[in-house]
C-alpha cells in the first residue's frame, strides 16, 4: 500500500504449477488417513475436497498464465531488486524471528533483543550506532518491564538468570 514500486510478481502459470504440485501431494497424502466405518465422511474428506478445489483453481491459473505469457514474465520484481540493501533488510526479518527461536533461550530475552534490535536499527539508520544502541536499550527495558513486571509473563532469562 505504501508504494507501487516494491512489487514482486510471478506469472500465474508459475503460481498455478506450484499449487498444482501441492494439491497432488495433498491428495496423495490424505489417502493415508483412516476412514470411518459405516460413514462416508472421515478425516480425509474435507482436506480431499479442498485439494480438489485447489487443483481446479491451479489449472485455471496455469491456463491464464500461459495466455498472458507475452505481457507477464515468469517473475517480475520492482526496481528495488537492484538494491542489495533492500534484499538484506528483507532477509533480516525472518532471520531475526529464527534467531529468537534458537538463541533467545540461551542468551535470554534482554541480551537477544538488545543485540538484534541494535543491529536492525544500525542497518536501517545508515550506521548511526550511538543512537541505535540507545533506542534499542530503551526499547528492551520498556518491553521487559511491561511483559515481566506488569503482565507477569516469564520471558527467557538466559545468561542473565539470577541477575534480573
Amino acid at each position: 500500500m505504501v508504494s507501487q514500486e516494491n512489487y514482486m510478481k510471478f506469472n500465474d502459470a508459475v503460481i498455478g504449477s506450484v499449487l498444482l504440485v501441492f494439491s497432488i501431494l495433498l491428495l496423495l497424502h490424505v489417502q493415508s488417513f483412516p476412514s470411518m466405518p459405516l460413514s462416508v465422511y472421515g478425516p480425509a474428506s474435507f482436506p480431499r475436497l479442498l485439494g480438489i478445489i485447489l487443483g481446479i483453481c491451479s489449472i485455471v491459473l496455469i491456463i491464464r498464465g500461459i495466455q498472458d505469457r507475452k505481457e507477464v514474465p515468469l517473475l517480475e520484481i520492482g526496481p528495488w531488486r537492484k538494491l542489495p540493501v533492500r534484499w538484506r533488510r528483507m532477509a533480516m526479518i525472518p532471520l531475526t524471528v529464527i534467531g529468537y527461536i534458537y538463541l533467545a533461550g540461551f542468551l535470554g530475552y534482554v541480551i537477544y533483543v538488545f543485540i538484534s534490535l541494535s543491529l536492525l536499527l544500525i542497518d536501517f539508520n545508515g550506521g548511526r550506532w550511538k543512537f541505535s544502541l540507545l533506542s534499542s536499550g530503551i526499547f528492551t527495558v520498556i518491553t521487559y518491564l511491561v511483559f515481566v513486571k506488569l503482565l507477569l509473563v516469564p520471558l527467557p532469562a538466559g545468561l542473565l538468570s539470577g541477575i534480573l
Partner: protein
Amino acid sequence: MNAFIDAIGLVARVDVLLTLTFSSFFGLFLGAIPGLTATMAVALLVPLTFFMDPVPAMGAVVGATAMAIFAGDIPGALLRIPGTPASAAYAEESYLLSQKGELEVALGTGVILSAFGGLFGAVVFIVASPLLAEVALLFSSFEYFWLTLMGLSSAVIISRGSNVRGAVSLALGLLMSTVGLDIAMGYPRFAFGNVDLAAGINILPALIGAFAIAEILRTVTTTDLKGREIKQDIGNLLKGVGKVFRKYKVNAIRSSLIGTFLGALPGSGATMATYMTFAIGKKFSKEKEKYGTGHIEGIVDSSAANNASVSGAWVPALVFGIPGDTLTAIVIGVLFMKGINPGPTIFMNTPEFVFAIFIMFVIANLLMIPFGIGAIKLSRHILAVPPKILYPMILMTTIVGTYAVHNSSFDLVVMLGVGILAYLMEENNFPVPPMVLGLLLGKLLENNFVGSIIKAQGSYSAFFARPISAVLGVITLTIWLSPVVLPILKWIFTTLKKRLFAQSREE
C-alpha cells in the same frame, strides 16, 4: 436492566478506562503513520490482550480500531498519502481541499463525521445484535453450517482480485484449519509425528503474521523510510464543520447505513465501505463537477462510512461468531483464546459483557473528537517519526508478543510462515482476508457439517429440511452460482434491450 448496570460497573474501572485511553492513543499514532494499518495496530495489541481480563481486552481493540481508522485521514489531507487503506478513497480530495487553504475543514469534518459514523454503527450494533441473537438461538448445526459457508463464500466473491484467487486463498486458510486432531475420529491430520502440529495451528500467531509481518516485509523494500515534514499550520478544526454537516446530513446518514451494512457483510470492511459510499455520493451529488477539485461531500460520505463499518462488523462477530471484517476476525481469535465462544449464548449467559462492549464503543467514539483533534494538532510530530526506527521495533514487538502468549517457538514459526505467505499472496493479487477467515472458521464449518450429517444419518437433503436452513442454503448456492449466472442474465438483458430498441426503431 440489571445487566446494563453490571456492565457500567465492568467498564467504570480504572484499568478498563486506562486501557481504552492508551489503546486509543496507540490507534491514533499507528493509523496516522502511512503503511501502518488499523488491522496491524490491533494485531500488535493481541499479545497484550491475552494477559488482560475480557472486558479491558475488548476495550483495547475497540479503542485502537476506531481511532486508527479515523487517523488514516490525517496524512491523507496533509500529504496526499492515506494513513490506512480505509482512507485511500478520499485522500486526493482531502489533499486538494488542504491545498485550497481548507485543511481545517477537511480534517475537522473527518473527525466529526468519523465519530458520527462510529456512533451510528454502534447504535445499530446495540439495537440489532440482541434481536439477531434471539433468532440465532433457534439455529442448529444445519443453519450454522450454511451461515459459515455463506460468510466464507461472500468473502471470496467480495474480495479484491478474481474469484479464482479468492478461492485459492480461502482453500489455503481452510486447509490450515484442518491441521491437528480431526473431529470425526480424533486423527492427527498433517501432524507428521510433530506434537505442535497435532495440536493445530493457533489463530493469533497466524493473524499477527498475516497483518504485521507481511506489512513489515512489504515496507522494508520501499524507498522511503524517512520521517515526513509537515509545514502547514493547523487552526480551528471545528469552524465550519456544523455548516458542512447540515448541508450533507443526508449523505452522512446514508453512508453510515451503507457502511454499517458493509461492515457486517463478511469479507468487506472499512476500505470497501469508503470506495462504495464515495462513488454513491458522487452519483447522487448535485455538485458532481466539484469532485476532483477538493470537494467536502466525498469526505463526509467516506469518513462516516469507514467508522460505521468498524462498528457494524461486530454484529455478525458477536451474534454468530462470523467476523464481518479482518479486525473482528482478530476479536474472535482473542475471544476464543479467553475461552469465550461468540454466539447467541453470550447474549443470554453474560449480557453484561455484551453491554460493556456497547458502552465502550460509545465512549471510544465520543473520545474520538477530543483525541482526534489532539492528534491532528500533534500530527507534525507523529508524522516526523521515521519508519526506519519504527519498523525494527514493531518487528521485535511482534516476536516478543507472539512468543510470550504460550512461550512457544512453534507460534513464531506459524507467525513467520503465514507472514511470508501473506506477503507473497498480496504481491500477486491474492486477497488475504479469505485465508484468514478460512483459518478462523474452518473448524466451525467442518464440526457443524459433521454434527449435521450424523444427525441426518448421512442424508444430504436434511440440509434443506428446516426452513431457515433451506433459505440460507439457497442464498449460499446462489452466491456460488453468481459468477456464472450474472453474466448470463446480463447477456439476456442486453440482447433483449437491443432487440426491443431495434423493434421500436422499425416501428
